[in-house]
């Protein structure tokens, strides 16, 4: 099944041409790794999918992004963002308690009932493997958690809204290897129920978790294929150079 269908996507920020003629098809319930050097357009691509780019004043785009067959530009942006959750590079808890962080998305979508909220919070925290560590202190500030716990809290917060897709923007760039392993483990379990798009600077991570891999360079999609194919026999020489660490 196709989750995203992207046709002739171009993005500008002011004079900067940040995304050039991208065409892609992203299947559902699998992990797509997106790799590429800094400023190659990976993050812009990711933020396009849940319409976060338009929070910038000077954003412009052409082309189409179809999500489940519907053009996301014609959908209500809040609905798009609920269906397509996002986990940021640095753990970004909101300045409130652990419970309120996870319940936040549920609350803003109109669920006032505290019991329903609590159920959603528990379920999401369990999915993100955080429940056992925090169940006794849900009322403490989210900033009291360690970096890895905070990042899993952000995953739980995203899951609580019950999205179909989760976008990860370099989710492990600030984490130690053990925390990273926990996050990757969570992703592998989550892909049974969710479509996951993972932007990462870490080529090995892309190889470890990605079913498919896309390589961006200079605001263009160079190639996209099965992860094994990309890492063993890429079609483009630039892809080969990048994954072998010749530049980046």
């Amino acid at each position, binding site marked *: 099944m196709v989750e995203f269908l992207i046709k002739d996507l171009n993005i500008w920020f002011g004079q900067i041409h940040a995304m050039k003629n991208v065409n892609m098809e992203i299947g559902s319930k699998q992990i797509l790794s997106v790799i590429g050097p800094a400023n190659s357009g990976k993050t812009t691509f990711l933020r396009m999918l849940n319409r*976060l780019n338009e929070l910038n004043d000077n954003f412009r785009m052409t082309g189409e992004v179809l999500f489940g067959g519907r053009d996301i530009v014609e959908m209500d942006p809040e609905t798009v963002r609920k269906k397509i959750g996002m986990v940021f590079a640095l753990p*970004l808890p909101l300045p409130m308690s652990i419970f309120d962080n996870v319940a936040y998305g549920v609350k803003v979508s109109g669920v006032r009932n505290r019991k329903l909220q609590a159920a959603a919070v528990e379920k999401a925290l369990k999915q993100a493997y955080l429940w056992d560590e925090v169940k006794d202190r849900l009322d403490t500030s989210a900033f009291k958690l360690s970096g890895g716990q905070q990042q899993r809290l952000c995953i739980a917060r995203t899951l609580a809204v019950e999205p179909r897709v989760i976008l990860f923007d370099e989710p492990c760039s600030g984490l130690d290897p053990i925390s990273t392993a926990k996050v990757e483990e969570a992703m592998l379990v989550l892909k049974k129920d969710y479509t996951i798009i993972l932007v990462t600077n870490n080529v090995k991570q892309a190889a470890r978790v990605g079913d498919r891999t896309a390589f961006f360079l200079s605001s263009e999609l160079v190639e996209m294929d099965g992860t094994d194919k990309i890492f063993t026999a890429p079609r483009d020489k630039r892809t080969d150079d990048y994954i072998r660490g010749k530049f980046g």
Partner: protein
Amino acid sequence: MNDSNVTECPASPALKLKKRSRDPVLTQRLAFAFLFVSTLLIIVPVGLIIVIIVQKGLPGITWQFLSDIPRQGMRSGGIFPAILGTIYLVSGAIVFALPIGLLSAVYLSEYARGNFLTRLIKLAIVNLAGVPSVVYGLFGLALFVTFFKFGASILSGALTLGIMILPIIITASLEALESVPHSFREASRSLGASRWQTIRYVVLPNAISGIITGTILGLGRAAGETAPILFTVAAFYLPQLPGSIFDQVMALPYHLYVISTQVPNVDEKIRYGTALVLLAMVLFMNLAAVVIRCRFRKKKKW
């Protein structure tokens, strides 16, 4: 300053003199001494003013002085109507200015784009802050007293003061809103919250201390101003309490002006006492603002 220092030691040989006059360390010492003296010239009088007013005003402060109406043409009795009048005016001003000022700051921080309109609004705020207070008085007289026919009343005075403190509230609130990290807004929006929900649940709760601080500073300013209320509300001598917002009231700053320039032979104790009450009121509000700011700064979680 160098030269004078040099001529003071004529015994030194010429060569040494020349060298000495360019001695950067000595120059620095003299320059820093000048800077220090300048600073003292500002700070010492501030301390003196406070000391003088407290010392001479404190003996006049009695319960009767604070709770009684003025008597014998303000030469005895208390200042209660003036205190109450100032409280009414300040409350009225804040009720008017806080919602408008806060929403205006929300507009600038959350909605405005970096365009010409935004530039124009910021320029207008700067100008509003710079308009002389007596011109606010004229404006209040023309608009509220005459045009809207509110007469000289609490309503006219409070609205005039409210417009006057608007820029203070906007500027302080804007600063508070902008100090909330941008990433919080993004996280909230990425969870499907709308722009207003993000403001309501994430931005405002984290900016509240700055907003309260700005509001209290605005209150302090409104409590101390005289010129804007001269023609819009203040009564020269009105030894009774107001019945409605369409009545005139006495106000502390105007009362101090009156008893120190317009009425001869007012007891020194009453004049200094009035000055002390006004000063204490204003400084208390400023102190409260500072305390709140420090409290929240310590509690800040990011």
